């Protein structure tokens, strides 16, 4: 069995985001980048399958050289091979990422493809579905339990107020949700070994983009709260403020 995990590098979740000088992207100065947390579940699931039944495992990322860090983290957790598809520029949208991943996956022909259910940078939740469409493969997202048999997978996914169980033929695409497993802490030896493991580099096959960022803005700062201090006597004023200022009644 061949398993591919698509991984991305995202700003650390504690990052205080600032807008860059272009006004269209974030200022990356001083930002720490980490493997997308949902991708950790995807990587762990692939590694467990490898340990159980000896699958061949790949981590694939699209982006700049920096994205090698995501692949290295996957190596540290036990993935064996890595492919970086080098973006032609920093300006790419979800479709460009999906198209490049789909082309690479089409060549690799894995039996099972994992994604994190979303990446925590833009939270678009778009790419796994686009890749599934481009490759015409079945796709189950937000998966919290997975059983893989020879030719099919049984996936449990979260739905509003319950869960849904889906059986799908392979190859298939699975989006990993928290709870699927407990991602391991990399072992010292694999951390030390990951550094010298080669990463295959591929050229980008598409850079057209279907969308364009016009501008990026921080949410408006929260205004100061107001306290009316005269107890019941403030009621009339409160109603007035709620109606005229806050405009909620």
């Amino acid at each position, binding site marked *: 069995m061949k398993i591919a995990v698509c991984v991305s590098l995202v700003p650390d979740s504690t990052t205080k985001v600032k807008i860059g000088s272009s006004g269209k992207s974030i200022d990356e100065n001083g930002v720490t980048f980490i493997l997308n947390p949902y991708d950790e579940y995807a990587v762990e699931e692939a590694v467990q399958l490898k340990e159980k039944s000896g699958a061949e495992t790949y981590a694939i990322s699209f982006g700049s050289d920096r994205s090698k860090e995501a692949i290295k983290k996957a190596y*540290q957790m036990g993935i064996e091979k890595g492919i970086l598809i080098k973006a032609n520029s920093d300006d790419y949208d979800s479709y460009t990422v999906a198209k490049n991943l789909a082309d690479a996956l089409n060549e690799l022909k894995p039996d099972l493809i994992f994604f994190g259910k979303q990446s925590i940078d833009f939270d678009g939740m778009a790419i796994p579905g686009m890749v599934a469409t481009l490759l015409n493969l079945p796709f189950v997202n937000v998966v919290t339990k997975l059983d893989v048999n020879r030719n099919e997978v049984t996936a449990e996914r979260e739905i509003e107020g319950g869960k849904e169980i889906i059986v799908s033929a392979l190859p298939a695409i699975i989006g990993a949700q928290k709870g699927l497993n407990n991602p*391991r802490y*990399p072992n*010292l030896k694999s*951390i030390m070994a990951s*550094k010298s493991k080669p990463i295959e580099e591929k050229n980008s096959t598409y850079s057209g983009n279907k969308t364009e960022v016009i501008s990026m803005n921080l949410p408006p700062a929260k205004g100061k709260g107001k306290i009316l201090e005269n107890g019941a006597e403030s009621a009339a004023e409160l109603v007035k403020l709620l109606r005229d200022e806050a405009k909620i009644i």
Partner: protein
Amino acid sequence: MSKENYKGVDYYLLDELFTEDEKAIRDTVRDFVNNEVLPIIEKYNQDMKFPIQLVPLMAEMGLFGPNIPEQYGGMGANNIVYGLIMQELERGDSGIRSFASVQTSLVMYPIFTFGSEEQKQYWLPKLASAEKIGCFGLTEPDFGSNPGGMITKAEEVDGGYLINGAKMWITNGTIADVAVVWAKLNGKVKGFLVEKGTQGFSAPEMKGKLSLRASVTSELVFEDCFIPKENILPNSGGLKSPLMCLTQARYGIAWGTVGLAMECYSTVLEYTKSRIQFGKPVAQFQITQEKLAYMVTEITKAQLLCYRLGQLKDGGTMRPQHVSMAKRNSCEIAKNIASMAREMLGANGILDEYPIMRHLNNIESVKTYEGTHEMQTLILGEDVTGLPAFQ
């Protein structure tokens, strides 16, 4: 310090000196401490329990015996890596770091250094994987700083040795599968491996500790305890052998207590910046700033001392006295910093909502064990003057 925001303390850009591996390993252990230790440690500390469920996880990460060669189940990592692991673990809790120190420096190290090939092959992989837990018995009720006076003795009998005596203050004693015990054989200190369940051997847990509560501390009692002759550490001999182990453990403490200081400083820095009194953040008062400046300076000095010590250890030129200097310094500054941080948090400083009081209590043990502050001082004093002042 809220775990998500902790970024360590690196005023002098020491990260530029660490290799990619060293940083990646440190950050992995930091994640482990953030996710597994910090959320539970106050409770375990209050309940006076060691969170033993963390041990298999630590073993899987390779935190026991990282600097032991791979053929014996270690990682073959350098000593900077070992130091950074200790730094991060002790940022979580001195009890967690103590467990790892004992397993690595006081059990795996003596078996690796003084053990027979069979002992090494049998014990080291099991200790690395934490299938077996170890402890180190040197201190006795009447002999602490002066272990050479120990009373515990071994006597040669048919097929092995009979051990009689008692050890006290032994970390991991009650939970250990094997004790590295130091006893006098014909008047000379030798190391012995005593396995749990051996007749005549018991290891009751000590009660009433107000420090290092999330760690097991025990007595070891030997009453005509027979051990087979294969259980002597053949290459040990004289007080120098246990002292060599202490050098290893002190090395880990030197790094570990810097982690403790980093946590206290980070916590108090964040706190004083947000605590408003007299209409200003407390951090804006000069007296507060003087303390913060002291803390960050001492942490930076200690970090540099440890880093250089690691280089000396890896290069084979480290002397035990070098380690004494670092152990003495790190414990001293960590205690000062924890104590100042306690005061700077005001009443909040005594709450279990903050890690400070626990660290302040813990550092009291750490400053004492593996050679007290005074003993490290006398070791340095003798080294620079050539004049021993112990007696």
